[in-house]
């Protein structure tokens, strides 16, 4: 049977995501004592970016095996995640201009979008049961 598409419960995907999380957290921990802008600190940042890129590439690649309904479900979920993330970021941007604390969106955009994407998948899948 065609696999049901991207399955975030697939042990291989979970394994890669966990390793990436450890690499990202580990690099952050190692770099905390290094001077900002130093070659070592920048090198660790590149390692973090590569780990993040790997997870994103695997996610997108995994979607190539989806059947037509799975693709529709993911499209609906991704559209919701995109819109939700845009609303959060732009909305907070206006608040920052008005004096609210600044947020490092570079760190938070992917986790926010992932949570919204997962939520969208749950909602969209229920629609087709």
């Amino acid at each position, binding site marked *: 049977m065609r696999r049901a598409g991207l399955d975030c419960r697939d042990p291989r995907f979970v394994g890669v995501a966990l390793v990436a999380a450890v690499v990202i957290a580990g690099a952050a921990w190692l770099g905390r004592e290094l001077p900002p802008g130093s070659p070592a600190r920048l090198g660790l940042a590149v390692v973090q970016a590569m780990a993040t890129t790997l997870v994103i590439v695997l996610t997108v690649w995994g979607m190539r095996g989806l059947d*037509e309904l799975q693709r529709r479900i993911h499209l609906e979920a991704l559209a919701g995640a995109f819109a939700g993330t845009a609303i959060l970021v732009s909305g907070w941007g206006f608040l920052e201009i008005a004096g609210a604390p600044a947020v490092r969106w570079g760190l938070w955009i992917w986790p926010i979008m992932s949570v919204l994407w997962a939520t969208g998948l749950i909602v969209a899948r229920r629609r087709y049961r």
Partner: protein
Amino acid sequence: MRNRVRELRTQREWSQAELAERLDVSRQTVNAIETGKYDPSLPLAFSLARLFGRRIEELFEPEG
């Protein structure tokens, strides 16, 4: 759109998973088609018709 997919599948004593395997789609897609929650694309509709040895019009008909 109404369809006879479940009727024809059960006549052959296939499970949804078996039908999904033959169509190279997920079981969720088969279930969504049978419950009328999802209308298949034309290629998938033709695959269904071919699999059951029927014409598309014998499998699917508009609501109302």
